[in-house]
């Protein structure tokens, strides 16, 4: 059984494998709204390689690309940023 750790996303707890891609974890949980575009559209990963910046979320206060962010225990994630 793979290792599990706990993170929170928009205040809600989520279990994930430590070191997994945060983008994968968020998509897997059914979330498709990573950030809001300037005109308010929901956006989710497009390139999955750190190029397009569509997957921007806030992790522990920092703005990061979810597709380049490995999950760590206790991480606090905010979407819609």
């Amino acid at each position, binding site marked *: 059984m793979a290792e599990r750790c706990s993170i929170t996303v928009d205040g809600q707890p989520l279990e994930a494998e430590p070191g997994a891609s945060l*983008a994968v974890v968020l998509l897997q949980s059914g979330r498709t709204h990573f950030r809001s575009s300037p005109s308010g*559209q929901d956006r989710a990963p497009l*390139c999955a390689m750190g*190029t*397009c910046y569509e997957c921007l979320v806030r992790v522990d206060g920092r703005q990061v690309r979810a597709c380049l962010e490995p999950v760590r225990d206790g991480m606090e994630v905010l979407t819609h940023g």
Partner: protein
Amino acid sequence: MAERPVVLYDVAVVGAGPAGVAAAQAAAAQGRQVCLLDESFRPGGQIWRHRPAAAPPEAVRLLEALARSGAEVRSQVSVFDGWREDGAWRLAASGPGGRQDLAARALVLACGARELFAPFPGWTLPGVLGAGAGQALLKEGLALRGEPVLVAGSGPLLLPAAATARRHGARLLGVLEQAPWGSLLGMAPLLASRPGKALQALGLGWSILGAPYRPGWWVAEALGAERLEQVRITDGRNERLLPCRWLFCGFGLVPNLELARLLGCALDAGALAVDAAQLSSMPGVHGAGEVCGVAGVDAALAEGRIAGLAAVGAWDPAGPEGRRLLRARRRARAMGRELERIFALRPELAALPRPDTLLCRCEDVPFGAVDPAWGARETKLCTRAGMGPCQGRVCGPILARHFGHDPDTVRLPVKCVPVDQLIPPEAGSGPSCPPQAGC
């Protein structure tokens, strides 16, 4: 702001895909001080983007050789600036601990390529991803549990993306290849002379068996309220509406030239220009792999090795290994050029965007906002297209295709970087020798 003394390496390699790993391993195995910098959380680039347990044997072998070579690997590090100072190349990079400065006598740019996006109405809906993107997320563990996935666009990368989707449990609706059957027949002679590739293609075809592979078809529109729900597909005459949750659409690759252009390297046909020893127009700057033109993993491995050896003065084109590498490069590059011709994008794709279809996703600039009479700079200033965090990486190639814009001059930072990391360390901490291996 952490201040590390600036270390002088023999070679700094930017990008840890197959080309960069090959270059770093080759140079370090010659006993030189090598630093390999990469943005992802582990080496492998895009094509070897697997969880370590699932990596292909070829990747495992090379990564183990890299580990044995003594090269210093820095992951999660984004190079955002480069310049020449006191006879050495200087790089500034952004890492988890802050700014990192390093100096190197030679550079190998193995920055790879990124997906080309060809917009269509609805392409910004969540659930629409690049083909390589979809494949990468699947390899990193995204489970699609029977959800309907369509793979569409153009090029040899569509089949592996579809096969991976199938293997990871998706309900593959099919693969739409915009190139017509007639163009695809051009693959036959290529595969006939490359039995390894032919077997690979057969294997991929087998693994998507049951799902249609349709040349001459493309996606005209993606539909849905808050995420992708349906796609409208067409062959130019007929149309179909399919329920769909995931659309992996890939239209080919674009070399990542930003750092090369910042350093002043000359380009050729939209890629980094290099000579027979992988040397660019700037002294001491080599290039290898997709950044020199899209040609696949075999070219990347051969060129990476050539560049790594050349960067430390150990490249011997006349020896048996040299001849083997040159032959491998030649064959791979020839195949790359042929594939580009076969999978060229048809004009109907350029006519898909409507005036309200977005061109720049960072700044929500629609196609209709661009006056075709404007040049590149005027467009950027009047519409803000290209002024967002992707720094024109997504919309730049779109503007080039639709409006003929040449890419703008590149300025630092080549990647977004926090304000404090753009502040150079105090003058006076000149380059020092790298630490002894094993310390």
